[in-house]
């Protein structure tokens, strides 16, 4: 019988919330609900990170998904709502079967694999990570070893967001060249 610690209880609770919300996020028709489910799922995942002893990444995860990505998702869902409202469910039975069989098969594969592996049965290690030391290590890594990747990441993010803004910009009135492309199919 496994030892039932408070930590495990919290972890199981959070894990259930994550998985349940994730399932909702992929099966709900109403995209606003699905979006909220996704955000809850990922924010709760941040909680799991904190339980696992990494406050910093947990906080960053929550900040990123409740702040930035949530807003993006909600706005895009709102802006494309005309199609969403009148749509109902576009998926056919075979879609669900394909997805279910393939992802179920993969899960089965992973489940058996993880259970078979001896190293994965080990319990929590005795060394509890001190979050201030971890944070310090992050800071040092960012200023020394990972300095250039960090800068590159900054450039990448800037480029990505400018690009996203440019792509999402409404077309000018005169720019009708792409219109008839959609008629092809």
């Amino acid at each position, binding site marked *: 019988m496994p030892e039932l610690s408070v930590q495990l209880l919290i972890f199981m609770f959070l894990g259930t919330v994550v998985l349940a919300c994730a399932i909702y*996020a992929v099966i709900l028709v109403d995209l606003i609900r699905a979006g909220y489910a996704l955000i809850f799922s990922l924010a709760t995942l941040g909680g799991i990170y904190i339980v696992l002893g*990494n406050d910093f990444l947990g906080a960053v*995860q929550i900040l990123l998904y409740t702040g930035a990505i949530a807003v993006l*998702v909600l706005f895009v869902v709102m802006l494309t709502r005309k199609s969403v409202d009148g749509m109902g469910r576009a998926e056919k039975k075979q879609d669900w079967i394909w997805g279910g069989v*393939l992802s179920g098969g*993969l899960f089965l594969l992973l489940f058996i694999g993880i259970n078979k592996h001896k190293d994965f049965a080990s319990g929590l290690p005795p060394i509890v*990570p001190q979050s201030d030391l971890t944070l310090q290590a*992050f800071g040092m890594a960012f200023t020394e070893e990972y300095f250039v990747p960090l800068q590159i990441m900054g450039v990448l993010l800037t480029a990505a967001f400018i690009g996203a803004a440019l*792509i999402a910009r409404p077309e000018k009135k005169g720019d009708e060249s*792409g219109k008839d492309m959609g008629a092809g199919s």
Partner: protein
Amino acid sequence: MTLGFILIISAALFCIGLFGVLSRRNMIVILFSIELMFNAAHLNLIAFWRFGENPLAISGLMFVLFSLAISGAEAAIGLALILRLYRHYKSVETQSITELKG
């Protein structure tokens, strides 16, 4: 709490994401699912860090941070593209966009 337990949760999260990608036709939901798969990978990395010997060996965590940034950029670009496609095709379903067929 064992490492395998966390890995199974992460595997489940990944498979839920895969399920969404494979069975949904709405591009926004497919993007959601991709986020889920990303985060399953992050959970894996953090679990391995926690169960590793040295909490100060943070290479894996740096992966998570960079991957978070990438997934943020990916979400922004992906949603912008979806918006653009929606303006063109008046639809966000994958089945309605088949320009690349041979």
